[in-house]
């Protein structure tokens, strides 16, 4: 590792050596064991009960959570002084990835360990931690997070729930309705957001048994049916003043900071779910015979398997690279100081854009995966006797919760532009260079002797393309750019593809030499297949964006730039896809585990 720590968003404007990225191949023996323990636990203790869990037998969920507690799977992010392990992010992502095979159960797990536990860890007073943390990390109590209301989802600060100090000053009286509360049916501790005096947005730790808290009926959902989702009704709910979490009026900090980690972790979880679905699809393709042949021998099916494998490799590379970025950054913060968690939050916030990218990219890969896995199953994918149908239903929520993919897409360029405005990223200077590049013809030949030369050239060009588009947009709309959502979404799409492609190429480059020749070929194939997709997606987003931003001669010039900077020579693409698909079907697994 070099000394320099990459800043959030900086990947868009600089070249990064492959030694600087963390990859799954870098896991320590201990991290691998965390993964194995989790995988075995889910396979043996959860998956056999999934049908029953999906019938809302929540006792099984609570029991599973208690077993997680015994195994230490709930204490990864908690401080050591309260019995936690304070493990790095790469470890908790690996566990999130492996848990995801547990369908609805994994939603309960994610809500508990993420939004359920982290507000208390980050913002709780010693007294609050003493009282609640051990119960939470042992699985004795389940935790939930109550932000959303019927009238406020993405607009979280528009909450109506109110808090009023009692006359004797000992309690707050909370009133309002919280909606879509994951784990609502069995949680014992709720982190509830409400406005004190209808003004100061504040978080409260609310026990289930506090007077005035009622759990509403279970929602009838499309998928993740085995997770509990209920309204929480607060009717003069009496919360002791010592249960105010964090500062009065600073609840938004808690709400949003916790979501950064949640988004990132969701990326890991949906990536794990993608792997599970892919393997189910591959196995079915090997079993199903039509026209006297396994359907896995048909090009139409092979192409799906190859594309998904490459997409998942990209997801995985992205998730663990981001874990590495966060861990490197967080390791620079001295533990134990008074401001530890404040600095910690800032460290995570640094990569808020990348956390959003993880959520959007990986959830959309899962969406494509479950869609194609249903398609591979044909009619059998449409009936609930096969798991493909459940994967399809369960997937949908991932593009909605933890910030919709639209909100996240808006956030990504938003965060990056904000950094530029604050002078933290020299985006403007780089954009000028990009415009110069647009004006000057390039004769750069790709050096075939270098590994992944074509992909690296594409990556460099896509960065230029992002800068041209973002630069044009900012120049035209200045600080009103925030109102041009369609343009921001297009810019986000390019930024997402760049981060995914870069993570993919750098991981492959870093790990290539450790593999056999055969595996190296597979790796090259996966990188090529993904790079082709990235070039198409980024090119398409850029073209769209160009039409949104400009017209006339400038438009013509930018469009020529789009053609030039999204060009990718994917010679051998078909052979690469067949190679990937045939190896996947032969081994009946995701190839890069």
């Amino acid at each position: 590792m070099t000394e320099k720590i990459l800043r959030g968003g900086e990947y868009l404007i600089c070249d990064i050596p492959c030694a600087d990225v963390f990859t799954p191949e870098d896991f320590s023996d201990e991290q691998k064991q965390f993964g194995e323990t989790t995988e075995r636990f889910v396979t043996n203790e959860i998956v056999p009960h999934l049908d029953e869990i999906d019938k809302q037998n929540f006792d099984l969920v609570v029991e599973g959570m208690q077993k997680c507690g015994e195994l230490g799977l709930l204490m990864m992010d908690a401080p050591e002084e309260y019995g936690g392990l304070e493990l790095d992010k790469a470890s908790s992502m690996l566990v999130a990835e492996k848990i995801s095979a547990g369908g609805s159960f994994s939603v309960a797990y994610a809500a508990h360990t993420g939004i359920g536990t982290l507000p208390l860890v980050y913002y709780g007073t010693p007294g609050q931690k003493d009282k609640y943390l051990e119960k939470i990390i042992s699985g004795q109590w389940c935790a939930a997070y109550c932000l959303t209301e019927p009238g406020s989802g993405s607009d979280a600060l528009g909450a109506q729930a109110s808090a009023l100090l009692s006359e004797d000053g000992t309690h707050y009286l909370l009133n309002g309705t919280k909606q879509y509360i994951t784990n609502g049916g069995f949680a014992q501790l709720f982190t509830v957001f409400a406005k004190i005096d209808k003004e100061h947005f504040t978080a409260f730790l609310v026990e289930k048994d506090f007077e005035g808290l009622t759990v509403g009926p279970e929602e009838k959902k499309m998928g993740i049916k085995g997770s509990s989702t209920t309204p929480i009704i607060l009717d003069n709910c009496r919360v002791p003043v010592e249960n105010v979490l964090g500062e009065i009026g600073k609840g938004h900090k808690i709400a949003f900071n916790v979501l950064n980690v949640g988004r990132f972790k969701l990326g890991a979880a949906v990536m794990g779910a993608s792997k599970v679905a892919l393997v189910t699809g591959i196995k079915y393709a090997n079993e199903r015979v039509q026209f006297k042949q396994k359907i896995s021998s048909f090009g139409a099916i092979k192409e799906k398997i190859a594309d998904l494998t490459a997409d998942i490799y990209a997801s995985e590379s992205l998730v663990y690279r981001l874990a590495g970025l966060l861990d490197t950054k967080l390791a620079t913060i001295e533990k134990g100081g008074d401001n530890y968690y404040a600095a910690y939050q800032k460290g995570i916030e640094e990569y808020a854009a990348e956390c959003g990218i993880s959520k959007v990219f990986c959830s959309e890969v899962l969406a494509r995966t479950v869609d194609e896995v249903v398609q591979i199953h044909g009619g059998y994918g449409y009936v609930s006797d096969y798991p493909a149908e459940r994967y399809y239903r369960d997937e949908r929520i991932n593009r909605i919760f933890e910030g919709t993919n639209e909100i996240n897409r808006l956030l990504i360029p938003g965060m990056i532009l904000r950094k530029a405005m604050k002078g933290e990223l020299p985006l403007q200077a780089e954009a000028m260079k990009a415009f110069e590049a647009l004006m000057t013809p390039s004769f750069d030949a790709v050096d075939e002797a270098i590994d992944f030369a074509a992909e690296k050239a594409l990556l460099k060009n896509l960065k230029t393309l992002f800068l041209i588009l973002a630069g044009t947009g900012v120049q035209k709309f200045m600080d009103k750019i925030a109102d041009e959502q369609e343009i921001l979404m297009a810019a986000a799409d390019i930024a997402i593809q760049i981060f995914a492609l870069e993570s993919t190429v750098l991981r492959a480059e870093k790990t290539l030499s450790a593999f056999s020749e055969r595996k190296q070929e597979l790796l090259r194939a996966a990188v090529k297949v993904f790079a082709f997709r990235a070039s198409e997606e980024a090119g398409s987003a850029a073209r769209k964006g160009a039409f949104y931003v400009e017209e006339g001669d400038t438009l013509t010039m930018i469009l020529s730039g789009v053609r030039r900077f999204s060009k990718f020579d994917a010679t051998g693409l078909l052979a690469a896809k067949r190679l990937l698909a045939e190896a996947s079907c032969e081994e009946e697994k995701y190839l890069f585990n």
Partner: protein
Amino acid sequence: MNILVCIKQVPDMESKFRIDASAAWFDTADLAWRMNEYDEYGVEQAVRLKEQVAGADITVLSIGPDKVKETMKKALAMGCDRGVHITDSDVSRRDPAEIAGIIAEYARDKNFDMIFTGMQSQDRGSGQVGVLLAEMLSCAAVTTIVDFSYREGRIEVKRELEGGIRASVALNIPALVTCQLGLNKPRYPTLPNIMKAKKKELLSLPVEDLRKLESRQQTARIYFPEKKGGGLVLEGDPARLADELIQILKQKTSILA
């Protein structure tokens, strides 16, 4: 009580195996590695015995290249107290007697009261190392145990026989048992224990210091058996199918001759 557990690192059995260039073993490139399943029962039983007998101490031993330490750490996380890693880059070429000899050389002066091994390895599957080791250390051995209990210097084990029969065997320690599926359900190492295992002693010894026996056998070649002819599916009208089937049975078998 002084306990020894011998474990082996083996490939994930769901891997796609390929024969290597020597044709005497499989290609180990790109494989994922695990603890031999039967050895895991051994580790679990040893840890349960330690939980029963105050002051017991478990040494886990494995032979192989550096990467076997990863598997040994799992045994330590499950509850073994210390590890002895016998470094050997050639372990896959050694025959069972050689392996048993190496372990015996290490164990001879250590006064182990109980030794647990798997009943066989999932990759080589000779099933010999445990019994050879017991013989070399002059202690009793019981193979393929599915139940184990200990009381006051004596163990009682159950063995699974053919035809659904079980045999109950009692013997004094020191003893060696080889463990079979069904003996127990190995625990999952908890995250705190995985972290604690990092601090446990893991000693490395070069195999050259312990290898006193020459091999007695060599694997000449390993190979995939030739595929037998595929099945035949007859389709069409049942009456004609019956005739067709009789013809085939007459021509190709002696059933109707």
